[in-house]
Each structure stands twice: as structure tokens, then as C-alpha cells.
């Protein structure tokens, strides 16, 4: 593995660096600086030709943004804020790196999922894998569509017209009362009656408009039903996907659980591991280290803890290339 930072180059299976953010280094391992290759033509492409061109999920979003080349002033500002750009030349990381690519005491891991990821690096598969792909494929193909903006506009219109109708109805009632009063007093009610007629006519108009607006809203909502149908289908599939992936993880963890249990005894730190897959009590870091140990890893893991004598000792114990990051200070 080759690591470049600040004009310095480090080579080997186990290297040590100082004063860098472990997250940034992990992101560099994950290929975060691939983007620098495209938007900063001056900087060398550190990946050295990853043929799959797959985007790597990196442990820290910040790391991905930061591990870019020294472009003009922008790059320098970033450097001042987050430290110098880091480049790592190594094979691309696999499924375990998302979970255990950065070994630090404050990082939590889902033990079963991490062990399952380690199993994948060893080539294990789960019987659910085919179904997972099928569900994913259907999910990708769903186009839900959207609630139109029409609905919002129609809703407001109905609300406005209902308000207007209420006001006119009150006005009509008031004028009816007035006409009656005038008649009782045997006074001239012609004027009032005329106003009443006008108000009644306006009320009738508004009522008709309101009914039409309501029908329009009903129609818009009927049309929305297919959007709702697709949303429900999507929800159903997402739930099914979650269940399948959980079942796959259980299967994979079971396949390598004994090996994991033995590995826990071989890494620094203590933990209790039961027979049953998933029964782990102890520091998350210990689980992560044991998972790394059983896994078949070509890309380096970032070690940001003080448990090993030396980077070489860490690489030996963990069975993987190591970048030991000593924090500044």
C-alpha cells in the first residue's frame, strides 16, 4: 500500500502517520479522492485504475469531501480547516470496510452485521441473495409519480369558496331579518328586498362554484390513488428487503461464528462470546478487530487505537494491511 500526504510517501503493509483525522484516512482508503481525479486535473489519480469504477461508501461524509487535491484557493482553505489531502493507493475496499474499516474505541458496530460482512469477504453467500436482488430490481423500477401541485391549489380554492359562501349565507340571513322587521313595522321594504335578492343571487353563484371546486378536488384525489398504490408497493418491498437482508446477515454470521469467537480471543481486549450467533458482550472495538481478523482483506484498515505494540504488530494480529493513525498532540 502507498499513502501520500503533505508531499510525503509511506509504503508497506503497515504504515504509521501522525496528526491526521482517522476519518479522512479511512475515506481515502475508500477512494474518496476519486472525485479529486475528475475535478482537479493537476492531481494524480491515486486509485490507479479501479476497473469497476464503483463509488465507494466511505465512513465519513466529511472525509469524502475533504480528501481532495490541492486545487486553487479552495483546496487550501479546506486544508486549513481539515488538514492536508490524503491519498491511498491500494486495492479497493470490500463490504467489511463500511463497518470495521476504521478501528477506534468510540465507534459502535452492529456485531452480527459486521461478522456477516466479514463472511462475505471470505466468499460466503446467503440463500436470500437472489431474492434481495430481485426486490432491489423491482424497487429501482418503481416510479411513484407525485401528488400534483393541483391538489394544493384545489384545496385552497375550496377553502376560500366555503368561507365566501358562509359569509354570503350570513348576509342573506341578516337581510331576511331586516326585510321581516320592516314589514312588521309596516315600513317600506323595497330597498331591503332588492338587496336581499342580490345577495341571494350571489350566494347561489358562490354555492355553484364551491360545488364545482369540490368536484374538481374529488377528481384530483381519485387520480392520486395510483400514486398511493405505488407508494404502498414500494413500502411493501422495502419491508421485504429489510427482512431478507436481516435473514441473510443471520445466515452469514452463523457460517463464521465459531471462527469469530476464536478470533476474539486473539485480539487485544476481552469479551464474552456465546455459542449462538449474535451473542457478544464486550467492547464494540473488540468485535470489529475480531471481524477484521477473520476476514480476507486487501485494502488497509485504519487503526486509531492504542492496543498494539506497533503498526506491524497490528497488521499481524489483524491479518490485514494497517494504517496506524496517531492523533495530533
Amino acid at each position: 500500500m502507498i499513502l501520500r500526504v503533505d508531499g510525503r510517501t509511506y509504503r508497506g503493509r503497515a504504515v504509521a502517520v501522525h496528526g491526521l483525522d482517522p476519518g479522512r484516512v479511512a475515506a481515502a482508503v475508500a477512494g474518496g479522492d476519486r472525485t479529486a481525479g475528475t475535478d482537479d486535473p493537476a492531481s494524480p489519480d491515486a486509485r490507479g485504475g479501479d476497473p469497476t469504477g464503483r463509488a465507494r461508501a466511505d465512513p465519513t461524509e466529511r472525509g469524502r469531501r475533504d480528501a481532495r487535491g490541492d486545487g486553487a484557493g479552495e483546496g487550501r482553505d479546506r486544508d486549513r480547516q481539515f488538514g492536508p489531502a490524503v491519498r491511498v493507493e491500494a486495492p479497493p475496499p470490500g463490504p467489511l470496510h463500511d463497518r470495521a474499516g476504521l478501528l477506534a474505541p468510540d465507534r459502535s458496530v452492529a456485531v452480527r452485521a459486521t461478522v456477516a460482512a466479514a463472511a462475505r469477504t471470505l466468499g460466503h453467500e446467503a440463500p436470500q441473495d437472489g431474492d434481495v436482488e430481485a426486490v432491489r430490481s423491482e424497487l429501482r423500477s418503481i416510479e411513484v409519480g407525485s401528488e400534483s401541485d393541483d391538489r394544493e391549489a384545489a384545496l385552497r380554492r375550496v377553502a376560500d369558496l366555503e368561507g365566501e359562501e358562509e359569509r354570503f349565507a350570513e348576509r342573506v340571513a341578516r337581510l331576511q331579518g331586516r326585510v321581516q322587521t320592516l314589514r312588521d313595522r309596516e315600513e317600506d321594504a323595497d330597498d331591503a328586498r332588492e338587496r336581499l335578492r342580490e345577495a341571494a343571487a350571489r350566494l347561489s353563484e358562490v354555492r355553484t362554484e364551491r360545488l364545482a371546486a369540490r368536484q374538481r378536488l374529488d377528481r384530483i384525489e381519485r387520480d392520486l390513488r395510483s400514486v398511493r398504490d405505488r407508494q404502498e408497493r414500494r413500502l411493501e418491498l422495502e419491508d421485504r428487503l429489510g427482512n431478507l437482508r436481516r435473514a441473510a446477515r443471520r445466515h452469514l454470521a452463523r457460517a463464521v461464528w465459531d471462527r469469530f469467537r476464536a478470533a476474539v480471543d486473539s485480539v487485544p481486549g476481552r469479551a464474552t462470546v456465546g455459542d449462538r450467533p449474535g451473542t457478544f458482550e464486550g467492547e464494540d472495538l473488540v468485535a470489529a478487530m475480531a471481524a477484521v481478523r477473520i476476514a480476507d482483506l486487501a485494502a488497509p484498515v485504519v487503526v486509531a487505537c492504542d492496543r498494539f505494540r506497533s503498526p506491524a504488530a497490528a497488521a499481524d494480529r489483524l491479518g490485514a494491511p494497517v494504517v496506524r493513525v496517531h492523533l495530533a498532540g
Partner: protein
Amino acid sequence: MLLVVTYSTAARQSLRNVRSLHEETVVRSFGRAALLAATEFGAFLALRLRERHGEDVEVRRAERFNEYRSVPEAVREAARAYESRESPSTPYERFAAGTDHPDPDRMRDREL
């Protein structure tokens, strides 16, 4: 009451959170959906969900259903009579034919 229905996993989770944080306003919960008190606070919670999840949340109004007020006697009576019929496999159409019980197609066309 306000009926809040969610249409995505994220919206569903938010609704669950509302349920645990605001028990007193959530009258009844059905997982993906819930009935909220028709108070300003209930509306506030519902609208917040709409703001956060947009069209993945639907809000409707639910009222008490008073069958004595809203449903013709004939329909209520038909439901009672049909559910105590002698032969369980008889569909309603056949059961109602030749009786005073309302015809299902006509019922479908008439709003409450």
C-alpha cells in the same frame, strides 16, 4: 379526529416517534397510520409530518360514525338481517332478491 397515513418507511418511523412523544394526542395507532386528536396541536403534529415527508404523508379527517343519523333504517336493517341469515354461503344479492332489502348496486350509487 385526524387520520394520518404514512406511505414510506421514513414517514412511518416519524409517526412512531410522534406516538411515543405525544401519547396524549395520539388517540389510536395502527402502525402505518394513526388517529390524532382534532386539536390545534394534533393538526400541528400532522402538518409537521407533511412538512417533513411531503406526499409520503396523507392527512384526512375522521368523525364519529353515527349510523342512526347517517344511514337509512333499511340499510341498517339489511345488515342485521343478512348477518343472521340461515345459510352462510348465500351472497347478499340472492338474499335480498324478492325482499324489501335494498339492492347492492343502488346502495353503491347513493352517498350517505
